[in-house]
């Protein structure tokens, strides 16, 4: 083991946002190993206070360009729960449909553009155009299809505008539904090709069992709705999240650390895969098997593959949802439910691409926000990232500094952290003392 090592990565590239990784080893002993998040995460909560009920979903959709649909719906669900609004079955299906495609947008961005360069030996996505043009072209086609899906349903490819408390201000036409189905079907050859490429990638061998927390549902592979499930054996209604999920401020970061049944837990695609494998489509299960992804999986690096498997599931389930909506017949009268304002509290819990996302609002009689609490997936993962780094470092300490730096960055990137919404930027500097 290297006797002395001081690594500071500032910023860690190819993660959403900006932050620091600090590794300090003296006399073969790890003195410090932290992810430092330097900026304030509480701005949006403060900003929501005093706002009228129709505003939070539009404001919070701007928190992040990658998770705008997830923030929109965590927000809408919190408000609908507070007021007792009951959206129609058609609305719920359209919401699940748009939700799938933010997941595809984000998972595609991460798997192909942000993580693949590590595994294919490229510094970023740009050299991949030369070395692996097929990968870049497939990624762009998938991203464009997912963008188009979100645009048709949400009115825009990012920061949707048709999605409001009660339902939709505009629903897609039958023609658009059929167009979406055709677009989805056309992705299968690209997914097949991607599978062949991904199968050649070697994920680092690293296992650390932790607590996996995600939504769960009796029928669906839960993304839009469900109860909160822990691999440590509990399931709770999302409204009761405070009975299990705790937050604490840590000295080195303004992003709060979270814990539930033990010191840390993991949220995101791998948690969803571990908790809800049986609800995946058959094809997604086949792809998982081909990639060597089995439950329970304790290798964080495999989160990259879990994200890819979720893309397959989202395509399959979207086609099913479109068929169901078409069979029932699109009905403008079911686009909006009644909204009656009243004082109360509501919690909206969804699966953002990076994991569990919670919005908790309290409203007064006029429908203005009195209090807001947002818990963001990357905050939930911080403690687990640090514990993973703690366990992984001794396994690679004999490698060169450059290799250690890259390995630790890859570990952090495997979480697909989105620091821009949990806070802002991320930074790494590597110095031998």
């Amino acid at each position, binding site marked *: 083991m290297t006797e002395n090592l001081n690594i500071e990565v500032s910023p860690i590239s190819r993660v959403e946002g900006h932050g620091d990784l600090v590794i300090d080893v003296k006399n073969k002993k790890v003195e410090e190993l932290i992810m430092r998040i330097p900026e304030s995460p509480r701005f949006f909560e403060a900003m929501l206070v005093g706002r009228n009920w129709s505003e939070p979903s539009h404001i919070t959709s701007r928190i992040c360009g990658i998770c705008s649909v997830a923030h929109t719906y965590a927000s809408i669900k919190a408000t609908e729960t507070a007021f007792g609004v009951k959206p129609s079955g058609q609305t719920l299906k359209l919401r699940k449909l748009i939700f799938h495609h933010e997941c595809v947008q984000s998972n595609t961005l991460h798997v192909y553009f942000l993580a693949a360069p590590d595994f294919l030996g490229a510094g970023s996505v*740009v050299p991949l*155009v030369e070395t692996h043009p097929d990968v870049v072209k497939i990624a*762009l086609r998938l991203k464009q299809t997912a963008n188009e899906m979100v645009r048709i349903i949400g009115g825009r490819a990012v920061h949707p505008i048709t999605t409001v408390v009660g339902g939709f201000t505009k629903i897609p036409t039958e023609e658009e539904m059929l167009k979406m189905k055709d677009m989805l079907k056309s992705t299968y050859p690209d997914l097949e090709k991607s599978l062949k490429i991904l199968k050649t990638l070697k994920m680092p061998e690293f296992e650390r069992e932790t607590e996996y927390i995600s939504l769960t549902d009796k029928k669906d592979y839960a993304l839009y709705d469900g109860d909160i499930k822990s691999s440590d054996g509990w399931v709770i209604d999302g409204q009761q999240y405070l009975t299990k999920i705790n937050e604490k401020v840590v000295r080195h970061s303004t992003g709060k650390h979270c814990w539930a049944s033990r010191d840390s837990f993991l949220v995101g695609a791998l948690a969803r895969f571990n908790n809800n494998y049986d609800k995946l489509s058959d094809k997604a299960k086949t792809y998982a098997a081909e990639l060597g992804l089995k439950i329970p999986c304790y290798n964080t690096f495999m989160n990259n593959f879990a994200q890819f498997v979720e893309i397959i599931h989202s395509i399959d389930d979207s086609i099913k949802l479109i068929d169901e909506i078409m069979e029932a017949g699109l009905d403008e009268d079911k686009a909006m439910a009644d909204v009656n304002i009243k004082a109360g509290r509501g919690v909206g819990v969804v699966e953002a691409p990076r994991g569990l996302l919670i919005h908790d609002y309290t409203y007064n009689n006029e429908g203005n926000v009195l209090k807001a609490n947002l818990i963001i997936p990357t905050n939930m993962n911080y403690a687990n990232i640090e514990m993973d780094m703690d366990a992984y470092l001794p396994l690679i300490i004999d490698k060169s500094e450059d290799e250690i730096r890259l390995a630790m960055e890859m570990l952090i990137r495997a979480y697909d952290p989105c620091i821009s919404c949990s806070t802002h930027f991320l930074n790494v500097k590597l110095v031998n003392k």
Partner: protein
Amino acid sequence: MSMHNSDSASNNAANINYKIIGFGNIFMSDDGIGIRVIEELNKINFSEDYRNVVLIDGGTSGIDLIFTLKESDRVIIIDAVDAGQDTGEIVKFKLNRLSEFNEKKFRSFSLHDISLAEVFNLMRSLNINPDITIIGIKPKLIDYGEKISPEIECKIPEIIFQIKQEIEH
């Protein structure tokens, strides 16, 4: 991205179609300047006077810019840019002058999935070559906040003047 319609051209540069894309996060203070400029152009019905122009609120999207660029001939990008100029100073340059792009250590503050520089490099690698003009202003403050600094906000008319010049000449 929201699109605001324009049919046929009716102005000086009648036959050339432009896309004006503003980038930024409206909740990150001066980072939102690109979006504020687009809002202002909508408010003054810019597309009525310049019917060959499409206005686009690009938000904080990164890689998605590729799709917009792919379908464009001429693009004007409005963003918070540090090209080594003074705070509040506006820079305007053509992206196809790559040497300038590198020399000036061009840095956009807005996009956070892949960087704007990566998007441009990727675009070149993919042989997507629209004519891109960047009009950028160096921000004073990039931090959580809804308001643009007064010394940046007061430059919006000047940015719009530069946009008009770019279209008319």
